[in-house]
């Protein structure tokens, strides 16, 4: 179990270094065991340095930078052990437009292995969805859902045939 953890930790670490740099368009990040001699109990240290900036405590990072670094770490774990489906509730909330696009590119690279259910307020994120459920409360306090699938599919078909010409 100890060897398994050490081996998996190392893989997640490698993933994190790559995915962080991909998401931030540069910079460096790392995770490490605070106490290398106590693999089964040691806490985990995180270092994250956005491009152009100097290495500092992660508390000094901005709201959006912290969110993006956390997303990089989450997906580093996904890469090791993808789940057949995943639910992400408003992960894009603190991100600006260009960071949302980078997050969505990362997401797309995982969609072959994972069905994603994404809750969002962002029109940008909505564009990459294959299917959309709208939830409303026509009667206050009572949730109902409307599937917005047909339009989405139609629009995709039209775009496909237009692209062929």
């Amino acid at each position: 179990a100890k060897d398994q953890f050490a081996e998996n930790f190392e893989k997640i670490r490698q993933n994190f270094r790559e995915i962080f740099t991909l998401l931030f368009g540069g910079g460096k990040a790392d995770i490490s065991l605070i106490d290398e001699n106590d693999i089964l109990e040691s806490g985990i240290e995180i270092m994250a340095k956005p491009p152009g900036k100097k290495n500092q405590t992660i508390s000094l990072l901005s709201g959006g930078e912290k969110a993006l670094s956390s997303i990089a770490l989450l997906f580093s774990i996904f890469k090791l052990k993808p789940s057949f489906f995943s639910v992400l509730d408003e992960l894009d909330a603190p991100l600006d437009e260009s960071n949302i696009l980078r997050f969505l590119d990362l997401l797309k690279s995982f969609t072959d292995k994972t069905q994603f259910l994404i809750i969002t307020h962002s029109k940008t994120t909505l564009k990459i969805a294959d299917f959309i459920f709208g939830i409303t409360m026509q009667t206050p306090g009572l949730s109902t859902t409307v599937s917005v699938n047909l339009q989405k599919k139609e629009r995709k078909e039209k775009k496909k045939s237009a692209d062929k010409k």
Partner: protein
Amino acid sequence: MRLKRIEILGFKSFGEKTVFEINDGTTAIVGPNGCGKSNVVDAIRWVLGEQSPSKLRGSNMQDIIFNGTTSLKPLGMAEVSITIEDTENKLPLDYIDIRITRRLFRTGESQYLINKKQCRLKDIQELFMDTGMSNDSYAIMAQGKIDQLLTSKPEDRRVFFEEAA
């Protein structure tokens, strides 16, 4: 293996039976503040075996039963079903479609079913163990919780890693 359908009745704000047919690819859920999007996430967690009311934003488990509105009466039971299509036979059952149901009555009585046969909560929790999907899987990321990865103490982060590694 893929998520096929989510059925919700009497869970939180879903006072009427609501069915989500889930397709391959990426699904987005949208709607105004308070309409019930995160309640769908809670429903998924709950049907997979979540036992901690605080993880569902409640103070006791009864909180998740539809409490009525100013114009509708409360319901006596919450029921959530999730259907998984398992064509590769990854789950230790002989069905292609596996439908898991959880019920909670106001009396406090609970019921758990796999393809309409009653079972124990333990059976549901163990069913997905090998697939990495569970009520506290890192693949279910609740609203506002992503930051905790970065801001939590090194020992707490450990818990997150242990689930994956």
